[in-house]
């Protein structure tokens, strides 16, 4: 085309989509462009669970324990990330990060309680 502008386009990597990939292939698309996508998603879910538990407790009882909310949310995200590894959207590296983070918080929660 005479005098036309050249436009560079980046197409998303759709190699995870095949005839038999199903919903798992669809969930795996962001991993091809950014490997830590689902780590951020799970961190967001963790934050939502923590703030929900904490603020509900604060509303009902006047005070809330942030550490116990964090620990309970950690248990939830461990289960979620295990399901993620079964679906193939969470790799071992991310799983290890989640596990270390969760277990440290659960450990502190166990040791910090009053007698």
């Amino acid at each position, binding site marked *: 085309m005479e005098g036309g502008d050249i436009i560079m386009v980046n197409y998303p990597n759709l190699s995870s989509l095949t005839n038999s990939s199903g919903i798992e292939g669809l969930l795996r698309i962001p991993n091809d462009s950014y490997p830590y996508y689902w780590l951020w998603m799970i961190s967001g879910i963790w934050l939502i669970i923590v703030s929900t538990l904490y603020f509900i407790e604060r509303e009902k009882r006047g005070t809330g324990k942030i550490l116990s909310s964090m620990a309970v949310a950690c248990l939830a995200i*461990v*289960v979620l990330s*295990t399901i993620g*590894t079964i679906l193939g959207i969470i*790799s071992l590296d991310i*799983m*290890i990060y989640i596990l*270390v983070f969760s277990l440290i918080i659960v450990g502190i929660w*166990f040791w910090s309680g009053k*007698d």
Partner: protein
Amino acid sequence: MTSIKNILSRMIMLGVLVFAIMSFIIISQNNNNVNVSDRLTNNTLINESYGDLENRLNQQTSSENALNALEEVPPQDYVGDLDVASTVSATRTARSIITGLWNIYVKLPMVILGVDPAVAGAITTILLIFMAIGIWAIWKGAIS
């Protein structure tokens, strides 16, 4: 007021909880045919504790296998590492739970943070000495 009974019961509860979490992840990954490269037991530290424990418990099906589990002693710990060796098979199997907890809580964060093994060994040694002194101090009533 912290007592030995309290500390021990918390340690036991925490151990059971961590063990339950780990076995939940490992068993559900094994049963659902997750890629071998994505399995939690693919990590060296976790495999040498919890993977070995799972193998050893699976081995206890016949007397011959139990004897093999009794005889097999791979010495692979370095200086400063927590080593609770025993000669009886059952406690050797249970030892994996203790070292597994230790691996998860002390060694795994060090591996992720990229601490050198020698430095990790030194920190572990200092930590163990302080734990021994702390338990002794609580036992003697110096800390209440």
